[in-house]
């Protein structure tokens, strides 16, 4: 029994932390938030050189073949730095292809996705569809697909789209297909760009119908997202604690008042709880697959609530300055809140927890 990362995982964490804090200072994050593309080729290539793009791809197919725990480690640091990057979207698509790509799809795409030459994303939400992430009504007609998907993250940066359809089916669509139209949407979180994707009779190449493997991929995705929220919340908490120690009112640091300090203690309770669950879910995905579905949903449900609450509470600690555009805190709040709704919100995942626990 040991809740610590091993030496390799610790090394990944240290590298990720040092690299990301050096490359994504607040001014860079702010600049990218205001930029339409939202990342540079140089930034992307650096992530690829670190091997991160190939993290979840098996070694035989050009990747590092590492597990969910390593992905959790990197995602937490990406969240901490609030790095604007299409990394997570591309890894999510890669995970689905690793899980259920046909032989031809794997051969064509896993190498380039692993090396970072290509990027992917998942198109999940129907335009007027269900609120639940597993209930798309999109159906292919023969080999073609016509559908509209909303809130597709990083679609403009993607070469390959994995489109969720009815009955748990998924289709691979190439972004270069002439029937694909990608329009920017205004995203709540400006550090992660969202798009409307209209598909008009595009060539639809079905992934294998492997419900268990696809479910495992989604569990990895929500766990990775939960870990990202942990990093976001950790950083917002540190900002609040630091501000509460510096800012003086009525001749004392505001952190000396229990109304403020207890708020900060509550942040720690929620950040550590979210962290424990995300680490556990990562471990379960790699080592105890039977527990993974429940662990992943617990991690995402808890982190979704905690991410919003901690960042909102940090804003309250900052008072008026925290509500200004000029202050960085709103980027954290927006990322936390947007993540809370991606790939199933707290309510949806709690429902899963109830079901999987036999309630």
């Amino acid at each position: 029994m040991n809740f610590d990362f091993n030496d390799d995982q610790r090394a990944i964490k240290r590298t990720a932390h040092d690299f990301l804090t050096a490359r994504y200072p607040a001014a860079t994050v702010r600049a990218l938030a205001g930029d339409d593309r939202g990342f540079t080729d140089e930034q992307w290539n650096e992530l690829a050189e670190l091997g991160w793009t190939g993290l979840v791809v098996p070694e035989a197919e050009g990747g590092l073949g590492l597990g969910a725990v390593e992905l959790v480690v990197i995602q937490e640091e990406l969240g901490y730095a609030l790095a604007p990057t299409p990394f997570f979207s591309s890894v999510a698509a890669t995970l689905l292809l690793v899980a259920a790509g046909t032989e031809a799809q794997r051969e064509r795409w896993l190498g380039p996705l692993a090396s970072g030459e290509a990027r992917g994303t998942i198109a999940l939400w129907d335009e007027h569809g269900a609120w639940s992430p597993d209930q798309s009504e999109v159906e292919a007609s023969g080999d073609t697909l016509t559908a509209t998907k909303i809130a597709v993250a990083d679609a403009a940066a993607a070469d390959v789209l994995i489109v969720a359809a009815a009955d748990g089916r998924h289709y691979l669509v190439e972004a270069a297909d002439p029937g694909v139209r990608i329009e920017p949407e205004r995203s709540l979180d400006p550090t992660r760009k969202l798009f409307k994707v209209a598909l008009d009779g595009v060539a639809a190449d079905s992934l294998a119908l492997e419900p268990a493997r696809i479910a495992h991929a989604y569990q990895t995705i929500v766990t990775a997202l939960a870990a990202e929220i942990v990093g976001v919340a950790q950083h917002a908490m540190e900002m609040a604690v630091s501000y509460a120690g510096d800012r003086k009112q009525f001749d004392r640091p505001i952190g000396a008042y229990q109304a403020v300090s207890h708020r900060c203690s509550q942040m720690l309770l929620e950040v550590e709880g979210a962290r424990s669950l995300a680490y556990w879910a990562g471990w379960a995905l790699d080592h105890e697959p039977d527990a993974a579905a429940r662990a992943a949903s617990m991690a995402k449900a808890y982190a979704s609530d905690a991410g919003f609450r901690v960042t909102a509470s940090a804003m309250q600690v900052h008072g008026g300055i925290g509500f200004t555009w000029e202050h960085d805190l709103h980027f954290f709040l927006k990322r936390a809140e947007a993540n809370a709704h991606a790939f199933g919100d707290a309510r949806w995942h709690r429902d899963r927890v109830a079901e999987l626990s036999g309630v």
Partner: protein
Amino acid sequence: MDLTLSPSELAFRDELRAWLLANHPGREPVGDEAAFAFRRDWQRQLHAAGWAGVSWPTKYGGRGATLIEQAIYNEEVVRAKAPQAANVLGLAMGGPTVIAHGTEEQRRRYLQPILSAEEIWCQGFSEPDSGSDLASVKTRATRHGDEWVVTGQKVWTTFAHHAKWCMLVARTDSDAPKHKGLSYFLMDMDQEAVQVRPLVQITGEAEFNELFIEEARIPHENIIGGEGNGWAVAITTLMHERATLAFGLQVSAQIALNELIEKARSTRANGQPASEDPVIRQRLAQLLIEAEVLRLNAYRGLTAIMRDGVPGPEGSLGKWHWSEVSQSLTELAMEIAGPRAMLAEDEWTYRFLRARANSIEGGTTEILKNIVAERVLGLPRMR
């Protein structure tokens, strides 16, 4: 990361589990005296089989268990719904304090009878005017030759009427700053000068007592950790209280939660099982998640202790978080009970009332938040 038990830890667990199954004494009898005798017998049985004082070093009669084994022990005992040992305060707090701060002679004198439940221990820390602010205690001890004469009042003293020894914190130097003027005594309860009065709580029971001390006598050799050092010794006792509690607490929360889910399934509300109600399902799921956090944080805390020798930040959160889980669990139970919530004979009505103390006993939530803010987050002190 490895969240599985090693072969030797599994062997420890299986041995204990089998022993508990074979030796479980059944349901505790009703009534204070009968229940206490039952717990005393149970502890003798534990002791005879080497299951009392698992965390204590073997040279003092314990089992010398690793931290993980202690955690397993606490989990298994709760899981088996085994009775509490009669001398719980001696085993969890008094013994470890004597081991840490006592002289070799004191260890020889006091430890063995704790294990065998021959001498029961109680704790005389809180006073009517000293709750969270423990260092402000007013009970005074004055030295007369080889003896100390003690006068004062203590409150929330569990098992006082069964106890032979009281871990007593008293002021021995009223001129010293408040944390410096305290000493930690072992007071013989068997004297006229110590009067015990049961304190009836909101559930109608009397788990706790008040202690009226009027010129009680304590030999000088009964000071633990030296004169004027009472604060440091008391902190050791309190740290043992919180550290060892965490594991039992999280398992008891899991068990209560399973019982609550069962209750939600079997209770009909508006023509369907209460467990089908979407709001109740959401709240049950949230409790399942929070209970999992308690379990994981307890293990993370353990890993931190093994790595750094001290509990990590998660350690300070356990008791606080547990009290919230325990309270919301019983509040949800009352909602599920519907009109039956008005009936006092319902088991959950009792639990609902008892849980109100969870955020007060063993460190109030407010004090725990102060500790987290000041010592973990490094925020400025409020005073």
